[in-house]
């Protein structure tokens, strides 16, 4: 007996599995009992089995270093799952659907009449300075009015156990393949636990993604040609691009495989010659999509792709310009955006956010840098942030200067105490902070069935003690996420 819940510390923190020392939450009880019954040797065996599965399945992510170029690292994985009760998840799911529906209405409005600006709800200057607003997209009507077909929203819990949305990723969110693979690994390693729980499956995602993409096809054909456009094998998310293409039975293409014809249609180069493409799930940033319109030196994209898209001859998911809502300043407005378009109260709260563009907020932020987390508007992956309570004085001074120079580019949030979950450290369990990234698919703005949410999502865990940085490029790992019916062990 090596795992003792009695000495597991949860004081002042919301822990996902353990309510108080020695007392698991109802839905986690079977798991906690099971883990407590394992010997050191069994734990070693399970860890080794998971590592082997990850190794053999080739689950990797790519890290760049100056010396060696791109290196494949095995995906860091913790074998203790995170459990969420189905009843709680249903509420989160409803909140996410509401949020993404409003965001799509917002993006569509920005590229058309901009009613929300005219009505004084959203400031015009924010739009003017937005790095991800694409004037080239004005007046375009993508199929079904959807711009952000795939959204990855990051959720965290504070010490009260409430889920908050931390950010929305509307450009090319990644991680869903790891969610799917984590489940495969767990099934290989812990088949007996799956017998004890009624765990909602996650593997429906690729077919839902396929259905959503197929619904965008401009031609009325039985089997539209869907492709996944990747920057190539050296992209850090290449594993995922290949994985999703394979799971959907779609073609995985690089920019050089595609060509836009004189008829403004997109074709791919095949052994039979050129073949028409209907839908592109693009995993390339806007600015590299089409050298004729954006970065002229980009070799990743396809010259003429924007022409073909504007002509309605090919669908792009996500639509170019969708990233305008993927901005930490826009984020602060999402509650108002939901009220404005849907006339509903947000079901899922935002983290309270100070917008440095507002003078009062800015003054407060600069005066309280030691208590706040400051984020630049358009960075992802945890780069360019200031974690005030852990920063040095000179780092805080640097940020005060940065904020004064470019207030529009910064927001600040109170330091949350992220929830923890038991994580194996050696053969013992220790609490480690985590977040959750569910993925939301939208094929229309209509009823509930137009939007689907993954069952749970990707749980990312900060493997370093006390750390809250969950990004895989900075020492993060992941866990399988179980949405369970009823109370486990039933």
């Amino acid at each position, binding site marked *: 007996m090596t795992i003792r819940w009695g000495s597991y510390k949860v004081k002042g923190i919301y822990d996902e599995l353990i309510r108080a020392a020695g007392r698991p939450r109802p839905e986690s009880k079977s798991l906690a009992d099971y883990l407590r019954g394992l010997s050191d040797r069994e734990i070693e065996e399970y860890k080794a089995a998971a590592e082997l599965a990850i190794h053999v399945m080739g689950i990797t992510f790519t890290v760049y270093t100056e010396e060696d170029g791109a290196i494949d690292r095995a995906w860091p994985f913790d074998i203790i799952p995170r459990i969420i009760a189905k009843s709680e998840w249903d509420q989160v799911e409803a909140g996410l659907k509401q949020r993404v529906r409003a965001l799509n209405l917002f993006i569509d409005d920005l590229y058309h009449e901009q009613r929300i600006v005219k009505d004084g709800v959203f400031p015009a200057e924010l739009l003017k300075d937005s790095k991800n607003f694409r004037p080239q997209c004005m007046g375009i009507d993508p199929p079904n009015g959807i711009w952000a077909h795939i959204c990855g929203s990051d959720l965290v819990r504070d010490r009260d156990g409430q889920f908050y949305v931390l950010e929305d990723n509307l450009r090319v969110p990644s991680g869903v393949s790891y969610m799917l693979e984590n489940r495969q690994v767990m099934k290989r390693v812990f088949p007996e636990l799956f017998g004890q729980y009624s765990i909602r499956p996650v593997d429906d995602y690729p077919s839902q993604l396929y259905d959503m993409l197929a619904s965008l096809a401009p031609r009325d054909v039985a089997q539209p040609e869907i492709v996944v456009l990747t920057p190539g094998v050296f992209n850090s998310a290449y594993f995922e691009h290949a994985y999703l293409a394979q799971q959907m039975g779609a073609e995985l293409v690089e920019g050089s*495989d595609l060509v836009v014809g004189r008829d403004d249609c997109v074709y791919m180069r095949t*052994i039979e*010659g050129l073949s028409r493409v209907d839908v592109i799930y693009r995993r390339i940033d806007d600015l590299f999509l089409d050298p004729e319109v954006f970065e002229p030196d980009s070799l990743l994209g396809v010259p003429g792709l924007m022409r073909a898209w504007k002509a309605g001859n090919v669908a792009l998911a996500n639509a170019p310009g969708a990233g305008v809502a993927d901005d930490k300043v826009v984020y602060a407005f999402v509650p108002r955006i939901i009220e404005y378009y849907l006339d509903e109260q947000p079901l899922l709260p935002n983290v309270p956010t100070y917008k440095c563009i507002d003078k009062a907020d800015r003054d407060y932020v600069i005066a309280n840098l030691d208590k706040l987390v400051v984020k630049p508007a358009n960075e992802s992956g945890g780069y360019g942030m200031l974690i005030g309570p852990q920063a040095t004085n000179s780092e805080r001074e640097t940020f005060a200067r940065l904020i004064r120079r470019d207030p529009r580019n910064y927001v600040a949030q109170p330091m949350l105490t992220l929830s923890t979950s038991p994580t194996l450290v050696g053969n013992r369990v220790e609490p480690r902070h985590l977040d959750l990234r569910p993925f939301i698919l939208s094929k229309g703005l209509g009823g509930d069935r137009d939007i689907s949410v993954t069952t749970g999502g990707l749980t990312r865990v900060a493997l370093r003690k006390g750390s809250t940085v969950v990004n895989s490029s900075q020492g993060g790992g992941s866990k399988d996420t179980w949405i369970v019916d009823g109370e486990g062990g039933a």
Partner: protein
Amino acid sequence: MTMLSRVAENIYWMARYIERAENTARLVNVNGNLLLDLPRHVRLGWEPLLDISGSREHFAELYHEPDERSVVRFMVSNQNNPGSILSSLNQARENARTIRDIIPREAWEQINELYLRARGEANRVLSRSGRFEYLRHVILGAQTITGLLAGTMNHDEGYDFLRMGRNLERADMTTRIIDVRSATLLSETHEDLTPFENIQWVGVLKSLTGYQMYRRTARIRVRRPDVLRFLFQESVFPRSVAHATGEVEACLAHLPRNEKPLRTVGTLRRKVQRVRPAGLEQAQLHDFIDDLQAGLARVHNSIAATYF
């Protein structure tokens, strides 16, 4: 489903590299065994392997002496040698990685695992007993991949490109082995085989895993003209040049736009079938093999120009 040109190319090269790794493993293995059987004064050591793989110059840049340890390292685990087993497996894996959506998952896992294990255990080849196990693992691993692909991959155009890559590589290796072995190891005596020359021809057959099959089809002593006929022309032996080119021809027959490559491979196959190995003296044999290799290169170029 249509097939991307880039994907066809990747499948083709993946298969070529897997085949290359397997053939190199066989070559090193058989050479080691052969040396044990020969008396000291006729042992030609490890240098012939460098000629077979066409890498003598490259070897000289990296090592001083073509001794056992250096040649084996160079052929097996040196990642600076693009033809080493490890480099071949790495290239196979990189090609497989970009077509993970095409090949069955188990095959990718097997390729990945074979490479990682070959890399992790590369030092085992330095001892003779470890070497045998290591090379056996590479050969079996490559065969497993071939079997997995045969049993689980759709036998569509992609599979045709796979078979073409494998068979062109195989034919190439067979011609190289005949060329180098007959030139450097074997004397010109046809009728009067000494026991050791006999052993050398057995070694040639064994590097191609052809000894047993030769026995079954030929049912005669191991003699130069019969071995050459077997390795060039035997239609039922999967590593003969005739069989391998026939496979390429059959694959091309399924593919669109196949006129030019079919013509090229047809010319080559007829050349192989018309030759009379008994009449080839050493110099002529060498010229003939040069001709075949140029022909294989033409087939490759024609496939690349049409489809990639």
